[in-house]
């Protein structure tokens, strides 16, 4: 028997660190293990005994890249459990905050982490040497997202202004209006940059997926909606745990997500896009069409294009919300603690993020469950790598390893909050076709 292993010391440009191990025996993929360490377990324990009002600020600390997602799922869960509904301009402000996070996260991933892969650069440093204007403009666009988060969220990193029931402080219209001109520039630049992204060399690879995302009656999903899937699932967020489960696997500290009766599933930009294309604006739909995206998008490498479409959408949404903004009369609805269980799910840049809390009548959190998108995607990431290596087994070892890294990066796995080194080990026993 011959076997083969691929080893890479670390996966550069994945947020944080983890490990990927692939073993090939007799030309067939024998084992794929994607392992990450996951901080939500620590935070679930940390939350127990704290007041329900602390959940948004504590969970915002889980990730430096997507704190808003954690805050949004936390407040939604608390409000659902306590029978409070936040709507009108308060809901619009929350959506604006989420737009800021999508813009900064997507732009960081597209231009600083993912595009260098396709363009054959080792990293963004090399890209900035040859294409300084591209990197400078991308950073300028990302800064607009940061500034939205800073103004609405109170701070860019670990925003502190989100409260169960609304916000601690609401911005004046005059604080938001100066963003309009910059957002218009960002929208033009993103549309201008789209053909360059569409022209990237994508591997000929399509996966088979159960796409799962939120779906809202009228909006492209961010803060709200029912959970739907390409397989026909359509459930309320509070039914999530009846249909999805997490399992321990030996090689990862993070639990792996599975849909009961279906198996692995996929959350993130491709899922949102495929299940909610009709909720995009005409302009975002046109940009998608111009980039050659056709429903359903099943090539995970093309997720960079979907991120571009979602960035266009988030910029348009931010412009719309700010243009229509009238400061609400009060910053938050008063929320009295109610004993019970509350569930929330929102669309983090990387995919659906689920929170569930059990709170006692004195407002103390007794139990918390947090299911981040990367944990849900882990089995699908492994399957992508398995199928990819099977299809491209004859590629030179170095190229195959590089492509495996990209295959993981397609998911923009947010394990920063979590883990450190990503090691890609592809093993090969003596006698194998080692190159």
């Amino acid at each position, binding site marked *: 028997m011959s076997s083969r292993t691929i080893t890479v010391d670390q996966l550069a440009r994945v947020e944080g660190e983890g490990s990927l191990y692939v073993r090939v025996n007799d030309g067939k993929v024998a084992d794929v293990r994607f392992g990450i360490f996951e901080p939500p377990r620590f935070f679930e324990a940390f939350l127990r005994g704290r007041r329900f009002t602390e959940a948004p600020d504590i969970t915002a600390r889980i990730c430096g890249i997507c704190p808003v997602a954690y805050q949004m799922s936390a407040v939604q869960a608390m409000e659902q459990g306590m029978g409070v509904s936040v709507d009108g301009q308060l809901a619009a402000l929350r959506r604006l905050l989420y737009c800021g996070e999508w813009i900064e996260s997507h732009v960081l991933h597209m231009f600083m982490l993912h595009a260098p892969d396709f363009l054959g650069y080792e*990293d963004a440093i090399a890209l900035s040497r040859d294409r300084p204007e591209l990197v400078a403009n991308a950073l300028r666009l990302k*800064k607009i997202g940061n500034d939205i988060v800073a103004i609405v969220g109170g701070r860019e990193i670990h925003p502190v202004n989100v409260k169960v029931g609304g916000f601690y402080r609401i911005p004046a219209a005059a604080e938001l209006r100066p963003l309009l001109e910059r957002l218009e520039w960002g929208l033009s630049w993103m549309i201008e940059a789209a053909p360059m992204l569409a022209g990237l060399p994508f591997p000929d690879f399509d996966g088979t997926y159960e796409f799962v995302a939120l779906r809202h009656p009228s909006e492209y999903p961010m803060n709200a909606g029912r959970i739907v899937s390409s397989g026909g699932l359509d459930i309320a967020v509070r039914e999530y745990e009846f249909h999805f489960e997490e399992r321990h696997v030996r090689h990862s500290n993070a639990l792996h997500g599975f849909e009961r009766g279906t198996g692995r599933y996929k959350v993130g930009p491709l899922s949102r896009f495929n299940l909610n294309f009709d909720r995009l604006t005409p302009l975002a739909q046109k940009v998608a069409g111009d980039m050659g995206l056709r429903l359903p998008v099943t090539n995970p490498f093309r997720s960079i294009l979907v991120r571009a479409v979602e960035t266009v959408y988030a910029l348009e949404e931010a412009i719309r919300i700010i243009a229509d903004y009238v400061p609400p009369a009060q910053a938050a609805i008063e929320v009295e603690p109610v004993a019970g269980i509350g569930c929330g799910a929102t669309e983090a840049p990387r995919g659906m993020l689920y929170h569930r809390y059990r709170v006692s009548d004195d407002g103390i959190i007794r139990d918390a469950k947090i299911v981040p998108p990367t944990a849900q995607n882990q089995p699908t990431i492994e399957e992508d790598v398995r199928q990819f290596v099977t299809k491209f087994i004859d590629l030179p070892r170095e190229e195959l390893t590089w492509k495996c890294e990209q295959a993981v990066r397609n998911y923009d796995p947010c394990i920063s*909050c979590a883990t450190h080194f990503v090691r890609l080990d592809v093993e090969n026993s003596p006698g194998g076709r080692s190159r």
Partner: protein
Amino acid sequence: MTNHPEAVDTLLIGVGNEFREDDAVGLCVAREIRRRNAGAVTVVEVSGEGSGLMEAWAGARQVIIVDAMFSGGVPGSIRRFDATAEEVPRRYFHYSTHSFGVAEAIETARKLGTLPPHLLLYGIEGKEFGTGVGLSDPVVKSVPALIAMIEEDLHAFHAV
């Protein structure tokens, strides 16, 4: 994070994640220097995501960054890099940050011509980077020496 309202002359940036044990040392040092030199130095804290770091130092003339380091050296050991003059070894600072992290931000800014005129980077070798709160003993023991070194630089910058 740009929580200073306008551009400042001298800036100290603490980098890290306070829930990752020794990764928090940059934040701890920054907070201590802020306390000891209240009003004299602008201190900001960042998570280590590179583009946020580039925004944080925008407009500042003299910048000192403090971050945890994972280079395989002795825990608690301190390295000082004059980032204006020399390239920063990326492998040292991989551990504490995202992959577009401190070293990547510095080198990208060098290529884009947006590096501050004076930039010092301090690395302190960490021991524990698991999920949790609190610094390991060797790191705690080195913190006073690191603060003294940074304050000496701040004096040289005529900041304090």
